[in-house]
């Protein structure tokens, strides 16, 4: 197991924490937490195997959050001295005072055991920041100019992030963590007559190290070799006829539908209205916990912050709560929400399930998404077996466009590849496909989920939520799944053409 980088541990973590927490106590705060973090991000972009741009940036700073007279106060700083940490505590208390006139709901936190000086590091072998930029550029250039040379243009990018967090609170919890994630993407582009299209790799972003690009967890050479032929076929494919079809959805597409229609819909802050003016609320209101018929009986959805290589996986969250796994939908019924400590106490749910996260030292933790995953059937079918059950349908792979309304009812998704299914067999690609549904109608139409052999962990780096806006990385596991009678749109016709 890798260790936390010495240069992060050499920062004056405890000295600043002690100064901030003591000042908060002296000023009468009921609760205080201190978080110092460094987030380093490197992005590399090539176009037609030539370097288009690169950046290497970090975000280093600390934050103090207090509860004073039942009101939150938050302040962050960038000067890593004990004096600045104490000043931030004073500022956080001042923010609470200015905010008090508009606070009518005293803040409390659900209890959590104290974790005294614990550490956690995500599962990876090779720190991508230890790999020379020239080597990474050369690999992306090689990927861009191999079989993909048949395309008109090829773009290739690699995003890498290392997140290091130190957390301490007035209850005595002290945690130090480090995690690494990366996302390589290669897109081939081609024009055939007046018709342009592109297709990108389905390789998901992962909580792994550079070994992901060299063979661990994904076969990039094999996927890249397939892309040119797949793109050629897509360019010549017929336009879909709009109507209702049975769908077999690959996990490379279904993860995003899970994210939007289950992940966000089962965030309790949304259900309680905290996001009402921005990200929105949820049709899955709190009064329906335990009774909402979310989907078919084969629908079992979990949330976790524990799965290996998951993008939302941590040891402890940003309120000092240990990572956990929990049920959200069991046999089609809503049975749980994603929580932070405030909401867990407010709604009498006992302990938080550890979903507080801040994306940077300058932002306050809010309830963010766990790895929300649709579980496979233990003896479930393969993708081919699911396809064999369809007389007239569409098989969908890869994500592309997505949109869902502010209560998570109505959604519309496209994808990377669509295949016509005729009499249980794939019958060539289709173009111009989008699927549109109401969340509960869609999940209730799920007739079968695939077995563990179809299960893949997808995800994204850039889930957005909150004001000020924050981004969070999150994974979603999914098997292939079969849905009956879903509305398919022809996107060209939708555009009035």
């Amino acid at each position, binding site marked *: 197991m890798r260790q936390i980088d010495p240069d992060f541990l050499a920062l004056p973590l405890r000295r600043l924490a002690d100064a901030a927490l003591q000042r908060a106590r002296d000023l009468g705060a009921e609760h205080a937490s201190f978080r110092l973090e460094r987030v380093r991000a490197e992005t590399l972009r090539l176009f037609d195997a030539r370097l288009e741009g690169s950046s290497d940036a970090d975000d280093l700073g600390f934050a103090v959050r207090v509860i004073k007279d039942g009101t939150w106060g938050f302040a962050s700083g960038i000067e890593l001295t004990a004096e600045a940490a104490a000043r931030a505590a004073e500022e956080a208390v001042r923010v609470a005072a200015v905010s008090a*006139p508009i606070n009518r709901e005293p803040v409390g936190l659900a209890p959590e055991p104290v974790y005294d000086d614990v550490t956690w590091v995500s599962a990876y072998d090779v720190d991508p920041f230890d790999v020379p930029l020239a080597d990474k550029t050369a690999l992306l250039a090689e990927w861009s100019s191999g079989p993909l040379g048949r395309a008109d243009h090829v773009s290739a990018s690699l995003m890498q992030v290392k997140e290091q967090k130190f957390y301490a609170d007035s209850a005595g919890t002290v945690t130090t963590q480090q995690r690494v994630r990366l996302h390589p993407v290669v897109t081939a582009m081609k024009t055939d007559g007046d018709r342009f299209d592109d297709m990108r790799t389905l390789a998901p972003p992962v909580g792994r190290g550079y070994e992901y690009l060299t063979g661990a967890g994904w076969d990039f050479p094999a996927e890249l070799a397939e892309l040119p032929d797949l793109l050629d076929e897509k360019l010549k494919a017929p336009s879909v006829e709009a109507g209702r079809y049975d769908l077999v959805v690959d996990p490379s597409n279904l993860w995003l539908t899970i994210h939007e229609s289950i992940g966000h819909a089962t965030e309790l802050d949304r259900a309680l209205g905290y996001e009402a003016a921005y990200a929105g609320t949820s049709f899955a209101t709190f009064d329906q916990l335990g009774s909402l018929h979310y989907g078919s009986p084969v629908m079992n959805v979990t949330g976790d912050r524990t799965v290996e290589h998951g993008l939302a996986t941590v040891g402890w969250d940003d309120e000092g709560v240990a990572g956990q796994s929990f049920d959200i939908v069991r046999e089609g019924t809503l049975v749980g929400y994603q929580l932070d400590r405030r909401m867990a106490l407010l709604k009498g749910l006992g302990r938080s399930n550890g979903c507080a996260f801040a994306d940077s030292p300058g932002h306050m933790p809010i309830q963010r998404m766990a790895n929300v995953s649709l579980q496979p059937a233990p003896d479930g079918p393969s993708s081919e077996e699911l396809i064999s059950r369809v007389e007239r349908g569409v098989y969908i792979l890869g994500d592309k466009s997505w949109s869902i309304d502010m209560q998570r009812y109505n959604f519309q998704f496209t994808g990377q590849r669509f295949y016509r299914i005729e009499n249980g067999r794939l019958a060539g690609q289709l173009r111009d496909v989008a699927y549109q549904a109401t969340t509960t109608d869609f999940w209730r139409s799920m007739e079968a989920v695939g077995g563990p052999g179809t299960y893949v962990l997808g995800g994204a780096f850039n889930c957005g939520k909150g004001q000020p806006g924050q981004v969070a990385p999150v994974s979603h596991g999914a098997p292939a799944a079969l849905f009956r009678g879903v509305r398919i749109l022809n996107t060209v016709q939708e555009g009035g053409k």
Partner: protein
Amino acid sequence: MSDHLSDGVSSGVTTPQETVERALALSEADGCVVIVDEGSTANLRFAGNTLTTNGVARSSRLTVISVVGAGVGVVSRSAVRDGQLADVVAAADRAAREARPSEDARPLVEADAAGSAGAGWDRPVEPTSIDVFGEFAPALGEAFAAADASGRKLYGFAEHIVTSTFVGSSTGLRLRHDQPTGRLELNAKSADLARSAWTGVSTRDFADVDVAALDATLTRRLDWAKRRIDLEPGRYETVLPPTAVSDLMIYLYWSSGARDAADGRTVFSRPGGGTRVGERLSPHPISLYSDPAHAGIACTPFVVAHASGREQSVFDNGMPLGRTEWISDGTLANLVQTRHSAELTGLAATPQIDNLVMEGPAGGRSLEEMVASTERGLLLTCLWYIREVDPQSLLLTGLTRDGVYLVENGEVVGEVNNFRFNESPVDLLGRLTEVGASVPTLPREWGDWFNRAVMPPVRVPDFNMSTVSQAS
């Protein structure tokens, strides 16, 4: 990289101006650009007539862009202290020496080419603080009390940001810009959450924000919504208010990269090759332009590029920006360009600018006047969750939100259900039947990233409401 800090032995905090000078002096590259961004923010967030989160934050980011031959190295670090400056510059120099040639490599911008933009180099940074809400917060508290008394709930967000940007270069650039950015978003709901209305304003300092007046607007709209009318999906005559127009036009603007157009990838690609610059997009004399000096929405008057990409180049840092017409008299006039892409496309170098203005013919009517002249149609409040479905037509999908009102014989007669739409803003330009008077507006969806817009209300005879959304 060495440690960021050894506590207690730091040598003090230098000013951003000193940091720029020292970094430039330390660089051993052929050329160097140094950018320092000093940021401060204060915010209040509320839901259901009570505070939910708040905060103040400071940030300081140093970006060193080193150039060796055609290679470029870019390193950005936050909270850099004196003792670490040499390491950051050395890392950028090293990255430049090891880099493959950058295709956008051009001579760095010379000081005399920058003109008079970005003056005031020596002034100290003046950050914002929680005190910017000193008068606003009590006024909001009063609005909460009034809402409680009348059975309404208020939700929203108030944010104030001040960013001071310093750009220096080995070619003599010393440019500085101070950008205040503020906004209030206010959302009112009925007690049962079945009715919802929204409004928002951009502001530079919150001194001009009248909470009571905004709340009164929302109260009126909630009253409109007391009569509910269900409509089927279909194409409807629709009046889009300025905020909805801004979200569509900002997406169009973000999609107007010349490089992608020339590569055949976008709605601005000409079939057979090249771009559609010079092609008429609308029968109306519509202008879509950006202008760093536009009153009320002034923005950075020179290029600030922290990394190169499809639509920006680090080599262009410091290029002066002036009024740029993207659409002129209904015709596509310019696309977003770097100096590099301008050479590829044979068009003028027209970098992206951080504000956007749309204007129709003189004498355009207000939103209220347009509603009053509507025989039967829909009046939207705003659009939400706008995403691209097809880049080649710029078909966008999204939702209506916080109030879709049915207008009959010039009067709002009730609220209808929300819809999912599928529309292309480029196609809409060709179908508009009326363009109203332009006013400052806050983009509802893109306001986090694009805050400065002046837009008209528009009338579309056949807006495509693809399906009904149950959301309220």
